[in-house]
C-alpha cells in the first residue's frame, strides 16, 4: 500500500485528540506557540497553546506578529526557533569527571532524552532535519546524542498555507509541501472560518496514531482544495534563490568585490548561523570547579563568525569579516555539496529575517551572479 494515498480529514477537535494520543503514547509534545511577540517552539498541551489566529510579517531584519482575520491554527511560517534546539541542543554535556581518594572517575552523560512529538513541522524544516541526519548520522561515526533524540521522534508536518516575506523554499525545491520524513502531514483548509485538516500518512506509527482519532474520509474536493493551497503558497514566495549552478558560481568568484561590500554590512554577530536549521557547528568547553576535584566537558553551538572558531596555533585563520561571511555562504551553498551531497540551504529565510541588519543570502548570490 502506498503511504501517501490514504487521506482523511480531521477537525480541530481531531487535532486536539491527536495531541492527547501522542501524550498517551509517551511523547513530549512540542510545537509552535506565542511568546515574546513571536512564534517559538516549546511544550504545548492543547490546541489553545497554538498561535491560533496569529500570523507573522517578515522581511530582512524584520519580524512582527499580527492578528489574522480568521482562527487558523497554522496561519504563519517559521519563526526564530528551529527543531534543532531539541535535536541538537544549544548545550550538551558530554562527560564529567571527579577526583576522589587519588582516583579520577570519568562519567559519560547518559541522561535519556525525551521522545519528542513535533507539531507543525514545515517542509523546509523536514529537509533541514534530513540534512542534519546526514551530518550527524551519515558516515562511519554517528553522533549518539543526536541519534538518541532523533530516532524515536514523531513528526506532524504542516503543508504551508502561505509563504512568508523571506521564504524561498520553492526555489530550493524543499517545499512548501512536505514530501517525506513525516509521520502525519496536515493541510489546513479554512472554510467559513472553520479549520479542517487533510491528513496524509507517512509512516506505520503515523497510521496507528491516526487510526484512533475521530476523522472522516477525504473527498476528491478536499484533495483538490489542499493541492490548490500548496500551489498558491508556491506562487507567493517572498524571495527566490537565483537559478543556475550556485556552487560553481560562488567557487569561481571567491575574490568578487561583493564580498567586501557584504563585509561592510556584516556584524559578524553569528545570528544567521544560530537560527539556521542546518548549521551544526559546535565548540567544546572544559570547566573545572574551585577545588579542582570536579570537571566537565560541554558542547555548545558555535559559529563560523566567531574568532575562536578558526583559532589555531598563532591566531585565527579567518580574521576578517569578509573571510568569515564568505566561508559561511560558500559552505552553505557550495562546498556543502562536496561534503554532504546537497545544498546546506533549505530556503526557510531565517538568516534573512533574523540578521539584525537584514543581509539577504539570495540578494548576495544575485549580486555575484549579476557581476555587480
Amino acid at each position, binding site marked *: 500500500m502506498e503511504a501517501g494515498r490514504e487521506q482523511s480529514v480531521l477537525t480541530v477537535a481531531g487535532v486536539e485528540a491527536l495531541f492527547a494520543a501522542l501524550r498517551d503514547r509517551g511523547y513530549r509534545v512540542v510545537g509552535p506557540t506565542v*511568546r*515574546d*511577540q*513571536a512564534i*517559538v517552539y516549546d511544550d504545548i498541551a492543547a490546541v489553545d497553546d497554538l498561535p491560533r489566529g496569529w500570523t507573522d510579517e517578515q522581511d530582512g*531584519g*524584520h*519580524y*512582527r*506578529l499580527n492578528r489574522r482575520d480568521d482562527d487558523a491554527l497554522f496561519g504563519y511560517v517559521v519563526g*526564530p*526557533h528551529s527543531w534543532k*534546539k531539541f535535536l541538537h541542543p*544549544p*548545550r550538551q554535556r558530554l562527560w564529567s569527571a571527579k577526583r576522589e581518594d587519588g582516583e579520577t572517575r570519568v562519567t559519560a552523560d547518559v541522561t535519556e532524552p525525551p521522545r519528542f512529538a513535533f507539531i507543525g513541522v514545515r517542509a523546509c524544516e523536514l529537509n533541514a532535519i534530513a540534512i542534519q541526519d546526514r551530518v550527524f548520522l551519515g558516515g562511519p561515526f554517528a553522533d549518539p546524542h543526536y541519534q538518541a533524540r532523533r530516532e524515536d521522534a514523531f513528526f506532524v508536518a504542516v503543508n504551508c498555507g502561505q509563504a512568508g516575506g523571506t521564504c524561498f523554499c520553492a526555489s530550493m525545491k524543499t517545499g512548501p509541501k512536505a514530501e517525506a520524513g513525516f509521520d502525519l502531514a496536515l493541510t489546513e483548509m479554512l472554510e467559513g472560518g472553520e479549520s479542517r485538516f487533510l491528513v496524509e500518512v507517512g509512516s506505520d506509527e503515523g497510521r496507528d496514531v491516526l487510526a484512533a482519532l475521530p476523522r472522516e474520509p477525504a473527498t476528491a474536493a478536499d484533495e483538490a482544495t489542499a493541492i490548490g493551497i500548496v500551489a498558491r503558497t508556491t506562487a507567493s514566495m517572498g524571495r527566490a534563490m537565483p537559478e543556475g549552478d550556485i556552487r560553481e558560481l560562488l567557487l569561481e568568484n571567491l575574490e568578487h568585490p561583493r564580498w567586501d561590500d557584504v563585509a*561592510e*554590512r*556584516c*556584524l*559578524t*554577530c*553569528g*545570528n544567521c548561523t*544560530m*537560527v539556521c536549521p542546518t548549521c551544526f557547528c559546535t565548540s567544546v*568547553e*572544559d*570547566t*573545572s*570547579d*574551585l*577545588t*579542582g576535584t570536579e570537571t566537565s566537558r560541554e558542547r*555548545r*553551538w558555535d*559559529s563560523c*563568525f*566567531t*574568532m*575562536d572558531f578558526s583559532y589555531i596555533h598563532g591566531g585565527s585563520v579567518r*580574521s576578517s*569579516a569578509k573571510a568569515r561571511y564568505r566561508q559561511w555562504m560558500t559552505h552553505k551553498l557550495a562546498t556543502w555539496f562536496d561534503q554532504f551531497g546537497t545544498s546546506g540551504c533549505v530556503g526557510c529565510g531565517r538568516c534573512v*529575517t*533574523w540578521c*539584525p*541588519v*537584514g543581509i539577504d543570502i539570495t540578494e548576495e548570490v544575485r549580486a555575484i551572479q549579476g557581476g555587480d
Partner: protein
Amino acid sequence: MAEAHKPRLAVWKFASCDGCQLSLLDCEDELLAVADAIDIAYFMEATRGHISGRYDLSLVEGSITTAHAAERIREVRRISDVVITIGACATAGGIQALRNFADVKEYASIVYARPDYISTLATSTAIADHIRVEFELRGCPINKRQLVEVVSAYLAKRKPVTPAHSVCVECKLRGTVCVMVAHGTPCLGPVTHAGCGALCPAYDRGCYGCFGPMETPNAPALSDWLSRLGMDDRSISRVYSTFNTDAEPFREEKERHGR
C-alpha cells in the same frame, strides 16, 4: 609534611563604584570554596585583616583617575604575580571616562563645593594603559559566574571560558527572541562582548553594551540600522557613551555621530 601552598589573593580598588568587588562577595554559594582554595590576604571591602607582602593573584577594580592612583597601580604590579582586572572601569575607564571628552575642571566645578580640593587627572584610563595585565574580565558589573570561572581557571592553570563573541550568541543559546528584529527595540547586542548571559534582552530590553565591544565589532553597520529604526545622531552617540565609552570601537562610533 609541608602544607600545600595556598595562593594569596588581593583585591584592589581604584576609581569605581565597588560593584565588581561586591560581585565577589555576592558569590555566596562559592565564597567558602573560594576561601578554601585561596588565602584572601587583602580585600578591604570584606575584611580589615591585611597580610602584606607578595600576592599570587591580584584582582583590580576601577580606573586610573589621579596621579596617586597611577603610582599605586605600579606598586600593585610590583608585588603581584598575576594581575586580573575586573569590570568596565578597570578595562575601559568606566563611565567616568566621559571626562576624557570634556573639560574635567568644568565637571569638578559643577560637582564639588570646593573644586580646589580636588586633585585629579584630566582622564580616566584603563589599568592596562598603565601596567601589564594578565587578563581582563569585562562587565559593568562583572558576572559573578565568570569571576568564579576566572579564579577556577587560574587555580587549575587553564584558560578561562569567557568567549569574546557577541551577546547575540548568548540570546540564541537561551532561546531569547531578538528584541531588535521582533520588537524594533534598539540593541547593542551585535557589537557587545558576551558574558552577562544576555540579561537585558531576556527582559525585553535592548543590550546597553555593559561588557564593552565584542572581538570584531562593526559599530558603523549597526548604527546605520539603528538610524533606520528611528534613532537620531544624538541618540546613537549616547548609546555608545556609557560604561565603556572610551573603549576604542565605541569611542569612534560615538564621535562619528557627534557629541
